[in-house]
């Protein structure tokens, strides 16, 4: 990049800084802002201090030395980043953020965060998303101007839908008069964040070093306050490249203090408890509700107090699947009170849509009795983005409570305890006995369903999952976020009681999320010494297979077992349905599925693809008798610290 005119740059920066100050609500006293928050007077509470209060009371002012006047702006940015607990930075390199890249690896010594080389921006975001699901901590990523952020968009959307915090810095060069012509200008925009604004929680365009410090800490705080979501900050190349200017005001880095999660209002919580305690058939439905061991324990406590079945939707584990109160959705029609916890789709939980006619209108029906009372605890109402439709159809609820589930559960539990009379305890106990019998019967039925096609080739998804489970169950294992739809067998037959056993789906169902997310999950598990396994679908892998290389390059051990049904199977079925509805024979050409939906002729040799990127791999495995020995071999490889992939030909679902 040609050197810019220093005097002009200074003028520009002064102008932009002045504009930023004018836009702020008031002048900030840097010295005061550098100090920790003033101790807040605590309100009387029966609850233990949360993370926010604990940090505010015990935190030690920690103002590290940082880059000062005359050092590169990006050095100061690295100082800011280092005050936050961001361990890794998976990203694809780009000229628009070369200044901070250089600062991160040289000035910042490539630690906290450590740069992980990615082959695509979607990989960087996917790794950050997968890492969060296991570690419950956000990562940051860097994206190239315009085109790089465009690459990242789909996985940013997935993270948004899944309520996962990801910190995105997007390179840009605002100064049209001084940025290099040609490609750097093509890769710049006047509002680069616009492309992701509809599916990020917050964004900003800092125009001074101090502005960056405030915005980055604010972004981190917003992203990690429920509802969690990605945030994006435009990283101006001029600001990052030019020397730091403090304009006579000492720069400071705001202290980060975790925000207390929003909890449900007490009156509404008491009403919810009253309804639940007095119900004959209360049902709890949990989706993206809790993702910590503490949260799981709280939900178990509530369910056991009420002796209420818990329907686990697929957003998080929520409750151990081994618990007798973990029940399938078939209990919902019997409910007289339903407690929905962070449901992605409350409407579809209590109603049914069947896609069963040629016009695509489908039929709607209710799953519940007309007088069933509905309660909701959710942060959905705290999200105000409206363009993308991830909020689903509107469902009217009798007691809607805006709040984080884990933050609200302690008061709900206390309210339930208070409302439970001896009579209601007896009713609950009897209900629990019946549920326990149903649970045992249900498990037998599931096992029998898994036995069908046990010896089939291609290999049944049940066989695939149970061959795998047999060899990992004695490890501290984690089924990392991944994409393979294997009819839910792991959730149905593996014993899961830790949040990292199952962390849910992508959120936005964008294909291409699974492979990088699995690498991100495995990265988090590596640091905990856990054994990571993913079930990787074929279609997903071909979107961004380069994520495999990142795993090999950075020595992230994991076992990826492929669910290779040789097609975009959801689309296989969709085109078939439309053909039938229109009374036409589906044209499959020479493939198995309708033209345009199969991934065959030629078959992709995923094992060779993985080998080419530094993985140990084997396949294609079509005979179920060969699967167990292959898994054994692969596990030995993973135990040695290398990633391994098995290309397994499977039944469609």
């Amino acid at each position, binding site marked *: 990049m040609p050197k810019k005119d220093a005097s002009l740059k200074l003028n520009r920066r002064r102008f932009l800084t002045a504009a930023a100050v004018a836009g702020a609500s008031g002048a900030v006293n840097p010295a005061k802002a550098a100090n920790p928050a003033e101790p807040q007077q605590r309100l009387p509470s029966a609850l233990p201090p949360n993370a926010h209060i604990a940090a505010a009371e015990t935190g030690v002012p920690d103002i590290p030395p940082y880059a000062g006047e005359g050092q590169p702006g990006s050095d100061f940015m690295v100082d800011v980043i280092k005050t936050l607990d961001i361990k890794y930075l998976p990203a694809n390199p780009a000229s628009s953020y070369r200044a901070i890249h250089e600062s991160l690896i040289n000035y910042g010594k490539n630690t906290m965060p450590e740069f992980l080389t990615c082959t695509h921006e979607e990989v960087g975001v996917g790794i950050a998303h997968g890492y969060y699901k296991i570690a419950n901590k956000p990562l940051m990523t860097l994206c190239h101007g315009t085109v790089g952020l465009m690459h990242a968009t789909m996985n940013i959307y997935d993270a948004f839908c899944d309520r996962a915090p990801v910190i995105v810095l997007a390179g840009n060069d605002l100064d049209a008069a001084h940025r290099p012509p040609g490609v750097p200008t093509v890769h710049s925009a006047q509002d680069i964040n616009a492309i992701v604004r509809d599916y990020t929680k917050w964004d900003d365009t800092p125009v001074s070093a101090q502005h960056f410090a405030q915005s980055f800490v604010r972004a981190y705080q917003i992203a990690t306050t429920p509802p969690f979501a990605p945030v994006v900050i435009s990283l101006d190349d001029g600001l990052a490249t030019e020397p730091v200017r403090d304009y006579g005001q000492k720069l400071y880095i705001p202290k980060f203090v975790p925000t207390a999660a929003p909890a449900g209002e007490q009156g509404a919580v008491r009403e919810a408890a009253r309804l639940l305690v007095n119900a004959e058939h209360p049902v709890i439905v949990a989706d993206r509700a809790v993702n910590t061991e503490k949260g799981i324990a709280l939900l178990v406590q509530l369910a056991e107090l009420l002796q209420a079945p818990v329907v686990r939707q697929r957003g998080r584990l929520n409750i151990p699947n081994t618990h007798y109160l973990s029940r399938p959705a078939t209990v919902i029609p019997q409910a007289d009170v339903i407690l929905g916890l962070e449901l992605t789709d409350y409407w579809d939980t209590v109603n049914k849509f069947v896609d069963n006619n040629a016009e695509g209108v489908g039929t709607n029906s209710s799953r519940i009795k007309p007088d069933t009372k509905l309660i909701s605890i959710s942060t959905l109402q705290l999200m105000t983005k409206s363009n993308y439709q991830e909020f689903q159809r509107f469902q009217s609820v009798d007691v809607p409570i805006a709040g984080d589930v884990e933050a609200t559960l302690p008061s709900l539990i206390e309210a339930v305890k208070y409302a439970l009379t001896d009579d209601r305890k007896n009713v609950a106990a009897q209900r629990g006995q019946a549920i326990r019998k149903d649970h045992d019967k249900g498990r037998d039925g599931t*096992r029998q*369903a898994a*036995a*069908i096609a046990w010896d089939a080739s291609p290999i049944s998804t049940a066989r695939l999952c149970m061959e795998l489970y047999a060899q990992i169950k004695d490890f501290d294992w984690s089924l990392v976020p991944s994409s393979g739809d294997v009819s839910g067998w792991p959730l149905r037959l593996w014993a899961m009681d830790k949040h990292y056993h199952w962390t849910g789906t992508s959120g936005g169902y964008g294909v291409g999320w699974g492979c990088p997310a699995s690498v991100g999950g495995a990265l988090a598990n590596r640091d905990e010494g856990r054994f990571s396994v993913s079930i990787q679908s074929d279609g997903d892998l071909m979107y961004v297979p380069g994520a495999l290389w990142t795993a090999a390059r950075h020595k992230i051990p994991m076992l990826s077992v492929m669910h290779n049904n040789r097609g975009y199977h959801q689309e296989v079925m969709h085109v078939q349905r439309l053909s*039938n509805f229109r009374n036409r024979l589906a044209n*499959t050409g020479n493939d198995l599925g309708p033209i345009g939906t199969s991934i065959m002729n030629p078959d992709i040799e995923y094992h060779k693809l993985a080998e080419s990127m530094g993985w140990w791999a084997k396949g294609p495995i079509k005979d179920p008798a060969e699967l167990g020995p292959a898994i054994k071999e692969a596990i030995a490889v993973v135990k040695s610290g290398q990633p391994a992939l098995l290309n397994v030909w499977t*039944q469609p679902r």
Partner: protein
Amino acid sequence: MQSVRVYLVPALFAVSVMLVLHPANAASVDNGKAAFVAHGCWQCHGFEGQGSVTTSGGRVIADTQLPADAFSAYVRKPSGAMPPFSAAILSDADLADIYAYLEARPKPQAGKDIPLLNP
């Protein structure tokens, strides 16, 4: 199609009945398998009719206990999410052979007897 359900035939006559029916039965089963694949039944029900909770509501059609006429009637005019297969796209003969193929699927072992299903 009831004739293929040899398990209903008294044991004394089983061998002779199978000898008589086997050629036609085998052809029917083979053709049924081809039709099962060509018409996309495998997509939701699996190649062995094992079904899936995500695509067939968990319904298993291998060794279905439905009589042939009830099976055919459902395929022609299904309820729920399954799309209809009219005679214009799936002939009565192919439908009958599909039924034969499903009835010929090997009976599964009991789940309790498969060690991997009892970890």
